[in-house]
């Protein structure tokens, strides 16, 4: 995709690409945005679950349960939930909620569907990319195939799965 030349009228689609991006490796912004959405979704669902448990406990026992976010059990429960959320999503369809929203997908490094084992390894290796002061993500910016450390460990890659050209045609047809 090339930058629009100067003097392009405002009606010109600003960033919708003319290229067919499907199957190409996704960039940092798309992946980061997808991950941010996933963190929000997984946290939201987890908090809703805690609230539901508190409500049920109050109804059934009459006692209030308060959740402390520094509690080891709460952190552990969230870690287990996050593992299930990511591993199951990647194993089932190659995409989480955030990835579906941003139109990206996890695949094997040769472009075929990722296996369940790869999904589990990728989920377990994901914290490593954070623990190395974020250096694990540098591969997305500098690597030839935009793979983070957890991608390299799991033998996966993240690709665009949405049809940018069709989106451009839809945009033009609306105008």
């Amino acid at each position, binding site marked *: 995709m090339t930058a629009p030349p100067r003097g392009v009228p405002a009606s010109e689609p600003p960033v919708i690409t003319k290229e067919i991006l499907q199957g190409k490796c996704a960039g940092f912004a798309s992946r980061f945005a997808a991950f941010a959405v996933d963190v929000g979704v997984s946290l939201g669902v987890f908090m809703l679950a805690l609230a539901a448990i508190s409500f049920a406990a109050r109804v059934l026992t009459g006692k209030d349960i308060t959740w402390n976010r520094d509690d080891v059990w709460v952190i552990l429960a969230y870690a287990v939930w996050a593992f299930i959320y990511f591993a199951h999503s990647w194993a089932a369809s190659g995409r989480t909620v955030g990835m579906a929203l941003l139109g990206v997908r996890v695949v094997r490094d040769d472009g075929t569907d990722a296996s369940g084992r790869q999904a589990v390894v990728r989920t377990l290796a994901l914290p490593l990319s954070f623990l190395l002061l974020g250096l694990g993500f540098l591969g997305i910016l500098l690597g030839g195939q935009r793979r983070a450390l957890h991608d390299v460990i799991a033998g996966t890659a993240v690709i665009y799965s949405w049809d940018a050209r069709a989106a451009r045609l839809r945009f033009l*047809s609306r105008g």
Partner: protein
Amino acid sequence: MRRRSAEARLVTRREALAQAVSERAVELVVSALDVNALLDGVDLNAVLDQVDIERVLDRIDLDRLLERVDLNGIVERLDLDALVEQTDLGAIIARSSSGVASEALDVIRSQAVGLDEFIARWIGRLRRRPYTGPPGPRDRLQATAGS
């Protein structure tokens, strides 16, 4: 023996002469003909009425014909953007795929891709390597060759 070879040479010369005469005759006839006047005299409609198109089509091997046509090349040469903007095709696409949700998705995704490309171009500049677009994942052949 000599007589036979002399006869053979004579036959060859005669054939060459006959060929030259016939070519010249055809040239003279063609130059004398007024092709336009001839075509004016032809009732093309009457000719076409006599042509059985169905029979002609039956004799055409469409599969073979299509094999020789580079459809991808034709599609590449089409300006789809102009086509969508200038024809009712745009309205058809809009009707078939419109919706606030899909529009919002398109915008979110395209903005993210724009940002991806912006970052990648800047990284390319800093590394003094021209950015040539998003890479594809390793294909299966490369993967097996590399292992």
